[in-house]
């Protein structure tokens, strides 16, 4: 446990931040000797280049390419960088991984994920049924499979409307044209259906937690969003403690018998004066390192839960009144790092020299980026961390 080897995905912290980079930071707080393997989908994911980022990075096939492609790639990675724990952070990825529990176990990889049924019961297109079974309110939420259906829902619910992808992305639209464009884009990127949701007025709340798979919650942290970006992302939040919100979360997690990390997005509907369910994400939110800074480290608890025989003591609650604001910074990289990550697999069989001919003498690359066939070893990784 002193130097766990942990693979984490979703390292981008741009406008629409992914949770991976925050998870890596939290893990490093608890396990300074952890060896972190970054699984990335784009060479420009910012977390790759962060100072406290992963030790080694591998590009992965998109989940839409399916299990075979995913496992093939994973195997070639494991040969070079053995991993004990896997923390996926992207909805589409989790959607694929819940089908692969056996395959992952065979490879000695531990995960702590929901099963297919849990995942599907909380899917955005099944929210109304879920809300009904636990007696929580939900704004009108409808899956649409084509533009005609979308227009029909819009005619009924009126504008503005939220338009969401199955696994990612949400946009508020106020006109027919915007609806058309948004639905079509989401179909292309995330497949059908897209989900339309009636807009709710009121403050937004988020709950971060870990479900134990038996209906219980191992830890919960609730915040009110204090700064909201144009895209609806929380750029700031403050911890709150409201028994009604706790009860709301408890009911949902009990009904789902949720296993693993979750984020519940809720709003306090001004019209109804009660909390309404916006969505449940099957992963930690991007602000997961905030409670870790307060000493309540959810990613570290998750790693403990992945150790079959170790169930952690329940995590304490974050006291109300702590807040975070998102602070965006630049991270620096060099073209050689990009070169390593973007070189296509055609070359795996060829002998290669890493340096770019003609490149102006540059600062030595601070760490090697592994692209799949050679390069970084665990010791390189530690060396790099110690260098900082």
């Amino acid at each position, binding site marked *: 446990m002193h130097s766990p080897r942990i693979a984490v995905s979703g390292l981008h912290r741009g406008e629409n931040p992914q949770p991976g980079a925050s998870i890596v930071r939290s893990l490093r707080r608890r396990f300074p000797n952890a060896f972190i393997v970054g699984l990335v989908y784009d060479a420009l994911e910012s977390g790759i280049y962060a100072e406290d980022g992963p030790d080694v990075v591998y590009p992965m096939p998109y989940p839409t390419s399916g299990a075979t492609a995913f496992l093939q790639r994973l195997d070639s990675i494991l040969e070079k960088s053995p991993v004990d724990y896997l923390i996926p952070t992207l909805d589409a990825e989790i959607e694929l991984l819940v089908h692969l529990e056996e395959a992952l176990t065979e490879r000695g990889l531990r995960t702590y994920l929901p099963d297919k049924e849990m995942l599907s019961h909380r899917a955005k297109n099944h929210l109304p049924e879920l809300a009904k079974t636990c007696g929580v309110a939900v704004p009108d939420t409808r899956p649409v499979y084509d533009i005609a259906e979308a227009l029909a829902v819009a005619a009924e619910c009126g504008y503005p409307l939220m338009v969401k992808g199955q696994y990612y992305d949400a946009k508020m639209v106020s006109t027919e044209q915007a609806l058309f464009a948004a639905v079509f884009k989401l179909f292309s990127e995330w497949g059908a259906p897209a989900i339309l949701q009636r807009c709710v007025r009121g403050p937004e709340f988020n709950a971060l937690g870990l479900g134990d798979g038996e209906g219980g919650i191992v830890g919960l942290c609730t915040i009110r969003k204090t700064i909201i970006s144009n895209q609806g992302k929380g750029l700031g939040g403050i911890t709150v403690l409201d028994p009604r919100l706790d009860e709301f979360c408890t009911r949902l997690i009990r009904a789902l018998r949720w296993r693993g990390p979750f984020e519940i997005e809720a709003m306090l509907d001004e019209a109804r004066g009660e909390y309404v369910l916006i969505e449940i994400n099957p992963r930690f939110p991007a602000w997961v390192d905030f409670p870790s800074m307060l000493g309540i480290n959810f990613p570290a608890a998750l790693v403990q839960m992945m150790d079959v025989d170790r169930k952690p003591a329940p995590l304490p609650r974050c006291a109300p009144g702590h807040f975070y604001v998102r602070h965006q910074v630049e991270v620096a990289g060099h*073209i050689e790092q*990009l*070169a390593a990550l*973007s*070189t*296509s697999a*055609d*070359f795996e069989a*060829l*002998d*290669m*020299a*890493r*340096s*770019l*001919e*003609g*490149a*102006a003498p540059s600062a030595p690359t601070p760490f090697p980026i592994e692209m799949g066939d050679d390069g970084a070893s665990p010791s390189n990784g530690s060396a790099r961390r110690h260098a900082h």
Partner: protein
Amino acid sequence: MSTPLSDLMLNDRGFVFDPASGETFQLNPTGLRIVRLLQSGLSHDAALTQMVSEFEVDEHTAQRDFSDFLENAVRLGWRIE
């Protein structure tokens, strides 16, 4: 505005950086070979002949792909003499 082939920075894996425009590119092995041959000063015809002798490809296919490739390179902002 276009960048002469000689100014492009590239490595043996076909990664290309155009220091003038700041753009990056990826060549596949055959593409890389063509760029290397042209950089070494061969004429188009000579480069094509060389490709056919090095790779398992018939002349018809090689020719089609060769001119496609160059056309693409020009569109992407490289100057091919």
